[in-house]
């Protein structure tokens, strides 16, 4: 690999790592004062356990060999046979992909906030990564779904739809928080949410533009798409709620930005021109309404992982079926409907997401059920009431006023 490409992948890897703390603050600010440290810990735990798991077996099972259908082998376990030849391109790529593996289960933490036992989370994360993330990642990137022609540039299907539907399965087993939905659970710190949003947007340039796995024109276009989709989705959400509810809110802007980033993720290296603006606008409007489904259907997805990540990921992934523009990229992928293609690409997108949804939902539900019947998944009522920070971690987030 050329040294310029290696340099960009290394920088991108660090950018993606930074997204997990960003996500922690995005979620943590939305949480209440007594549970914010538990939320940060659920996220940080993912960047403790997943890098190790990824190097031991995750990478090898999901990418070696690249083009077999269902699951890889153990040839590259423990970085076996990976050297620093070729400018270290293989090492840089493995580290880069490990960052994605780490943030994916972290996305689910927002749904189970305020009530899940940390011991159960500690087991859920590596088990889910091996049984759900690794196979879906394999099928989408190099495996049978990718070979059929479905497109996922940086992880719309493999990461956001996958984690989003897993979040739904997890909360269906876990149950609602005490007092939901009649009591509001307002964010305890909107400034933390906005800092988290900024870190996510910043890191997402590595997530999407880095997925070109080269410092080239496709990376530059993916960068521009990430820039535009996030802005236009944030703008769309802000305008919808301003008109609908009377006020433009910070949380609306932040949620729209994230929805746009999620939606452009699968499309970032396949669309061009004004397409990211349309994808962002559509995702912003759609997600502004899908976050209301939880109260209508009664599933307590605390911080809207389903409404933003699942819905946004699915919208972006399906829109590739309309906006994909292989001529612009000189690429070997199918054209979207707006660029002279048939519905075949859209059908492949639907199939790939359908498979990911069924697999992820079923396996996540099963993992949560097994944990529920063995070690238990839910904290007791007193711990839920007094707060998970003190009950599970023996820490409190805020020591104010000099009174300890």
């Amino acid at each position, binding site marked *: 690999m050329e040294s310029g490409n290696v340099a960009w992948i290394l920088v991108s890897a660090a950018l993606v790592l930074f997204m997990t703390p960003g996500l922690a603050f995005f979620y943590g600010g939305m949480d209440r004062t007594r549970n914010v440290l538990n939320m940060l810990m659920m996220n940080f735990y993912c960047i403790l356990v997943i890098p190790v798991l990824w190097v031991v077996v995750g990478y090898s099972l999901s990418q070696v060999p690249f083009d077999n259908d269902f699951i890889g082998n153990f040839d590259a376990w423990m970085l076996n046979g990976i050297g620093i030849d070729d400018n270290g391109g293989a090492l840089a790529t493995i580290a880069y992909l490990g960052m994605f593996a780490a943030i994916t289960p972290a996305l689910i933490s927002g749904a189970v906030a305020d009530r899940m036992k940390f011991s159960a989370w500690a087991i859920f994360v590596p088990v889910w990564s091996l049984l759900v993330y690794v196979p879906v990642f394999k099928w989408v990137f190099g495996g049978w779904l990718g070979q059929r022609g479905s497109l996922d540039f940086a992880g719309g299907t493999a990461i956001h739809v996958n984690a989003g539907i897993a979040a739904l399965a997890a909360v269906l087993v876990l149950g609602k928080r005490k*007092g939901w939905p009649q009591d509001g659970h307002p964010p305890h710190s909107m400034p933390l949410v906005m800092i988290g949003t900024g870190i996510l947007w910043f890191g997402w340039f590595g997530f999407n533009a880095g997925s070109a796995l080269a410092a080239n024109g496709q990376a530059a276009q993916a960068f521009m798409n990430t820039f535009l989709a996030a802005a236009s989705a944030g703008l769309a959400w802000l305008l919808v709620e301003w008109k609908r509810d009377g006020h433009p809110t910070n949380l609306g802007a932040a949620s729209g930005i994230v929805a746009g980033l999620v939606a452009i993720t699968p499309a970032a290296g396949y669309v061009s021109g004004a397409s990211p603006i349309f994808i962002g606008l559509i995702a912003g409007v759609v997600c502004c309404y899908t976050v209301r489904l939880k109260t209508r259907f009664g599933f307590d997805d605390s911080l809207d992982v389903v409404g933003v990540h699942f819905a946004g990921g699915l919208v972006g992934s399906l829109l590739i079926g309309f906006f994909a523009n292989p001529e612009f990229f000189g690429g070997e992928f199918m054209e979207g409907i707006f660029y002279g293609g048939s519905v075949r690409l859209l059908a492949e997108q639907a199939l790939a997401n359908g498979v990911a949804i069924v697999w992820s939902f079923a396996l996540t539900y099963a993992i949560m059920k097994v944990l529920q019947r063995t070690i238990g998944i839910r904290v007791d009522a007193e711990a839920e009431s007094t707060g998970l920070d003190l009950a599970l971690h023996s820490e409190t987030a805020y020591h104010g006023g000099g009174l*300890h």
Partner: protein
Amino acid sequence: MKLITAVVKPFKLDDVKSALREAGVVGMTVTEVRGFGRQGGHTETYRGAEYQIDFVPKTKVEIVVDDDQVDRLVELLTDAARSGKIGDGKIWVIAVDTLIRIRTGESGPDAI
């Protein structure tokens, strides 16, 4: 008129609020406070070192009520705030001479 002050566990505040609302109380003042009684404090751990937290977070609820309501409301409040464990808090009642609604200038029980 009487001022009822209750210092309760923070997580009991919702139960207290609902009980008082259902009993017809139309307003209350709530303050986040810290203190200790027989429960003492708790410990937190940072880098392996234990820290004794003497003043535990509590919530102080204050309502001004008419004399004939006091017994009923204190009983309701006691039931709502009780978990049966140490640290449930205290309730005290003192007489109030004057009460004025700022907007209208009404005074006495009319201002409740």
